[in-house]
């Protein structure tokens, strides 16, 4: 980028910020609706009201995501919701401490949702504080869930929600799992995960440019699709293709190599080569040649290097890597962060079914740092950032893989919270 380019960008930003509005006052963060002027100059009061807004969101429609069981699907109406919580004992120390000023606003006709730790319940209309309906610029979506606990004298723990109202949430039909990491330090944001419900049917969209699939548990929102389209630079079109279509299984040294045809001659291959779990994207190959190719590939479990046979002419390896995430069920859901409170992550959750977990400590790859937390959660991060993640078994036979640009330490903190859950 030359000086003219940079100057062009500067001039553009100069123009953009020229119309920057006045920053809101500290004591009056919102232009408050006249219907509720009492809230206008009491920031702390807002904390309570916002906390109460959790119940409004819950009414959008909630389907529980039971981390422990991986089950529990409901189809609540717009006026009721089902919420699952974990026990406080499972979560270790409470973080952050529940504030003292968490009583409902004076005059608020609301009832704390009758949720006992570890239980499921259904919220009804009379548990919704009507005042929150009048909030201007009401914070949306998941961040409010955290306040649900302290507002009702409960531990902010783990609340699972499934928004089914596409008008209210960009995460409709997806499951939001909020995890407060007990080990988080003050300056570290809490962990927020957006997970797919393993039992939801996948809805797939095909990238109009390269034919790749993006699949979601349930129907994704228009906003999420638009964002993905913008990032990939191609339109996502509904398709009846399934990520499990066209799998070809090739045996090699007792391991099964899974491969599937993508559009445009691309093939994804997942499996174990010479002790190294690998993921290879290739083009210029048809299924008939696949078995020969697989038998001739070599891999170095120490360096992570994957080598194709010289005879494999015409094949372009678009990507090969040690598969810290074994891609069996495709990238299922893009993970979005909607927390404003310093959330630093972005990533994806990959779900895998029927794949036997392996121990990543058995090998190392240059540029990656590995560790494990407990027996089930594997954590990795690339030195210098850019790629990292953790994997864990969310239900028997279903392994979730989270990729992120968080640091190894941050991932470990989340992994520890998972272990307790």
């Amino acid at each position: 980028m030359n000086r003219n380019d940079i100057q062009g960008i500067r001039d553009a930003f100069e123009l953009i910020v020229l119309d920057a509005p006045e920053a809101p006052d500290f004591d009056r963060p919102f232009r408050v609706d006249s219907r509720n002027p009492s809230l206008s100059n009491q920031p702390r009061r807002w904390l309570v009201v916002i906390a109460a807004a959790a119940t409004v969101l819950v009414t959008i429609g909630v389907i529980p995501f039971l981390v422990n069981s991986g089950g529990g699907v409901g189809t609540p109406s717009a006026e009721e919701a089902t919420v699952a919580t974990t026990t406080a004992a499972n979560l270790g120390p409470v973080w952050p401490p529940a504030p003292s000023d968490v009583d409902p606003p004076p005059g608020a006709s609301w009832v704390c949702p009758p949720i006992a730790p570890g239980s499921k319940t259904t919220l009804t209309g009379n548990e919704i504080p009507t005042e929150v309906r009048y909030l201007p610029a009401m914070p949306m979506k998941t961040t409010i869930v955290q306040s649900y606990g302290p507002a009702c004298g409960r531990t902010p723990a783990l609340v699972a929600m499934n928004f089914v109202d596409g008008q209210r949430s960009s995460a409709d039909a997806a499951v939001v799992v909020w995890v407060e990491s007990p080990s988080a330090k003050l300056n570290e944001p809490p962990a927020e995960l957006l997970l797919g419900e393993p039992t939801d049917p996948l809805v797939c969209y095909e990238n109009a440019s390269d034919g790749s699939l993006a699949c979601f548990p349930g129907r994704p929102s228009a906003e999420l699709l638009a964002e993905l389209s913008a990032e990939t630079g191609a339109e996502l079109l509904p398709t009846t293709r399934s990520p499990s279509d066209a799998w070809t299984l090739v045996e090699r040294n007792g391991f099964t190599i899974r491969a599937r045809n993508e559009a445009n001659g691309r093939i994804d291959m997942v499996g174990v080569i010479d002790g190294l779990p690998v993921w290879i994207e290739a083009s210029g190959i048809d299924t008939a040649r696949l078995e020969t190719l697989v038998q001739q590939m070599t891999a170095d479990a120490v360096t992570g290097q994957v080598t194709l046979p010289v005879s494999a002419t015409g094949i372009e390896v678009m990507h090969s890597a040690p598969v810290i995430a074994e891609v069996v069920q495709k990238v299922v859901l893009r993970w979005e962060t909607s927390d404003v409170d310093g959330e630093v992550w972005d990533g994806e959750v990959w779900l895998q079914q029927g794949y036997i977990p392996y121990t990543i400590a058995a090998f190392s790859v240059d540029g990656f740092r590995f560790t494990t937390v407990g027996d089930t959660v594997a954590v990795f991060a690339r030195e210098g950032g850019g790629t990292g993640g953790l994997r864990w078994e969310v239900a028997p036979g279903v392994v979730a893989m989270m990729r992120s640009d968080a640091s190894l330490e941050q991932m470990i903190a989340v992994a520890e919270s998972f272990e307790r859950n």
Partner: protein
Amino acid sequence: MSMARSRNHTQPFRPAQRDQGMESDFDANIYNKHRDELVRYATALVGPDEAEDVLSTVLVKVLRRRSLASLDNPEAYLFRAVLNQSRSVWRQRQRPQLVRDERLEHAPDPLPEVVDALRDLPPRQRAATYLVYFVDLSVSETAELMGCTQGSVKRHLFDARRRLAKDRRLDREQT
């Protein structure tokens, strides 16, 4: 030259000093110290029409969680919060209008084209571009404010340059 850019020539984004006294007063002081930078940042990310709402939401949500005075680097915390909230807005509105039409009509060429190109950038790429190329922050300073690694900042800048170059709105991708 904007205040945002000239500010960098002194000591950019120095962490706020802690003090003793009422917590809310500290929070107010911290916020007031950075409010202009934050609202410009929000404007660069979501445009003038949404910037105030973004900052308002951030202010309320952050205070709901904790006192700014308790943070080691409340400024970085606020910047990260603005970016995250802007991303949320971006998801809902998809393409925020960065510059009002009447401004664009009177802007010299090729500014509207560049503004369009910036508008098409995803929020984090736009944030990195703004902080590095407009505010003149270093990659490490930008990483701190964005709450990510330097590698991520470089990746966002690379992606932004590639996208801008692909749109032929800049002369070349990078040097």
